[in-house]
């Protein structure tokens, strides 16, 4: 926020940064090599829906776009729309575990549709799910406004496996732009698709 923004008491909605998302497929390979976590093939985009019909139209446009893909071979399952207890909407896209590229393309389609319609500031995060042989769950969360990634590993109850999260950061921290401010690694309990 600049000086003038303080004087005028205004905050411009923050536009999302989308490009870094495409670093995910190669980082997933690095993650598997270093820690044994493999992609489950599902990923989700989380955004705050705007009231009114305009946004509802855009949202159904996104769903239609992704479902059109799912009818083709290798297009994955139909997209799943859920609303979490905070009122945020999650679009879950499910693919085979080796289709990381198509998954990221799907997620990016959601982003760009929202951005093209002027709803870019409503994007919160994107989450790609991983799992290891001991069935431990791990999500790589991409923060749109920061353009950074952080790991989220839910343990039993409302606890996080901080050791695993830091291990992941150590393993692929150089491949992806990781969030350096640990206070911004906010938890996404019960995130759909994780």
């Amino acid at each position: 926020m600049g000086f003038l923004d303080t004087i005028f008491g205004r905050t411009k909605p923050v536009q999302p940064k989308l490009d870094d998302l495409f670093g995910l497929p190669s980082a997933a390979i690095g993650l598997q090599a270093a820690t044994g976590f493999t992609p489950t093939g599902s990923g989700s985009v989380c955004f705050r829906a705007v009231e009114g019909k305009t946004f509802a139209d855009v949202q159904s446009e996104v769903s239609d776009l992704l479902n059109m893909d799912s009818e083709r071979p290798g297009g994955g399952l139909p997209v799943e729309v859920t609303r979490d207890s905070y009122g945020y909407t999650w679009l879950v896209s499910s693919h085979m575990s080796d289709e990381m590229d198509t998954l990221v393309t799907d997620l990016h389609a959601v982003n760009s549709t929202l951005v093209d319609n002027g709803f870019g500031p409503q994007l919160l995060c994107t989450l790609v799910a991983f799992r290891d042989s001991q069935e431990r769950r791990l999500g790589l969360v991409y923060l749109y406004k920061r353009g950074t990634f952080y790991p989220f590993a839910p343990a039993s109850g409302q606890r996080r496996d901080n050791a695993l999260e830091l291990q992941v950061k150590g393993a692929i921290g150089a491949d992806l732009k990781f969030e350096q401010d640990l206070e911004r690694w906010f938890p996404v309990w019960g995130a759909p698709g994780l």
Partner: protein
Amino acid sequence: MARTRYAPDRGLSVRMTLTMFLLGLVFVAFVAALIGILSALRVSGGAIIFVAVIFGVGSAWFSLFYSDKIALRTAGAREVSPQEAPQLHGIVDRLCAMADMQKPRVAIAPTDMPNAFATGRNSKNSVLCVTEGLMRRLDDNELEGVLAHELSHVAHRDVQVMTYASVLAIIAGLLMRFAFYSELFGGGGRGGRRGGNNQNFFLILVAIMVVSAVIYAVSFLLIRLLSRYRELAADRSSALLTGQPSALKSALVKVSGSMARIPTRDLRDAEPLNAFFFAPALNLSSPGGGLAKLFSTHPSLERRIEELDKIQRQLGQIAPLN
């Protein structure tokens, strides 16, 4: 090219700038008047002015620096961890991630009065506080709107802006009091020491008192006006951040409705914090129209809802190209 629905509210910006300009002008007029009085009567009344400036700036600095602690203490609030209040923290986490801002500390005040405030000298030291009454009365969407409103106060640095804006009023108020007391008690002694200057000294004190009183009154009204504009700006940013102007409207209606039923004793306790509350604890705007509005720290409910209606329409439009 990205489209954006965001359009700055130029009218509000212009009005806010004008108010701040007038405050600056009042400040200049004040200094000029003081210099004028002193040089016309060829007496140095510098001592009390110096003391008033030191006290005024000192107390403003103190209240700014310790604003978070003072406010929490006054409200009887307690900071809560994410484990104690997971839903509240979750809402704040998400809002901060959406707005790309640092997360403030979160506190809960055990009062039934539905309200919220944010305070702190900078974003690192801010505290966001909600009362239990607010959490009980509002649903999550409405609570989110209120929290986004308070986060906007933090982002706009309203505590700082309002403190700087009120320094002049504090100094003028102090001078007025000092001049009054020295007239009562100090006049004779000073005059004796200074020989024939007794008459002049008395005149000076009266003049300083009158000027300070006028400056105090004018800057008080301007500060209240500025405060109302900052509230509208925070409402606006909140609605744009959450995309739910209607949830904020409904929160405003709920909070204002139950504010009226609150006993007076609570209201008096809440007075010092009033400027940073979500809705004013002293409900000035409802009974008497025009004059009460001038003194209010918050715009009327109708005005706030009207402004949110505009944003609602804006969000429903086809976005223009950026």
